[in-house]
């Protein structure tokens, strides 16, 4: 996972698989960075993600809660149709915005 910090925006470029195993490898770092950097906005970038399952929903919702308690905005970027279908099932688009790629 690549992480970029520009001004007060923290962007996580997620890797190929957003599943149980991969999330277990990156979760702690994401939590730590959001808490320590205090960004105004966090972007989860899915451009390079080819697979996502319900673990991804849990991860996104948990980061949303973490960001909300830090008065920080969370947005999703680079979603494909499959990501949207999975995320839409949980209703998370009612809480979290999708941002167009730059």
């Amino acid at each position, binding site marked *: 996972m690549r992480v970029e910090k520009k001004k007060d925006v923290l962007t996580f470029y997620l890797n190929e698989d957003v599943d149980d195993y991969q999330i277990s490898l990156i979760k702690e770092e994401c939590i730590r960075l959001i808490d320590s950097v205090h960004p105004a906005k966090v972007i989860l970038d899915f451009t390079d993600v080819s697979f996502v*399952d319900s*673990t991804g929903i*849990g991860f996104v919702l948990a980061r949303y809660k973490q960001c909300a308690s830090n008065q920080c905005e969370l947005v999703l970027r680079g979603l494909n149709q499959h990501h949207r279908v999975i995320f839409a099932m*949980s209703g998370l688009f009612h809480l979290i915005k999708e941002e167009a790629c730059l």
Partner: protein
Amino acid sequence: MNKVTLKFKSRMENESFARITACAFLSPLNPTIEEMMEIKTIVSEAVTNAILHGYDSNPNKLVKLEIGYDDNGCVTMIISDSGNGIEDIRQAMEPLYTSKAELERSGMGMTIMQTFSDSFDVISRLKEGTSVVVQKQLQKSK
């Protein structure tokens, strides 16, 4: 009718192996990209449940994946564990219900499997284990 049975350790990194193997086995049916994503997701959810809930993340147990298909492109998948079993299947099937919220689980695994399959059954006995039985009709290959 073609069939394969796989048994693998209940390690998280095997989830990716299981879903990729399932797709490789079904490739003679020429599934669409969408069908492939749906099958991968079903396998991933079922294996995650077996490891996380069936075995409480103990990596030294065994998960079994059976996949078969018939001449009409109807795929049957059975994912089983011999772990804890589910106390209340109806509750487990409820969207957003999770018994492991502390692990940032979404409670959407069962709903996703149900949505992507044509028939979806969960057979479970406490302290004996759980089997998820999925059927999915693929579009006829042209």
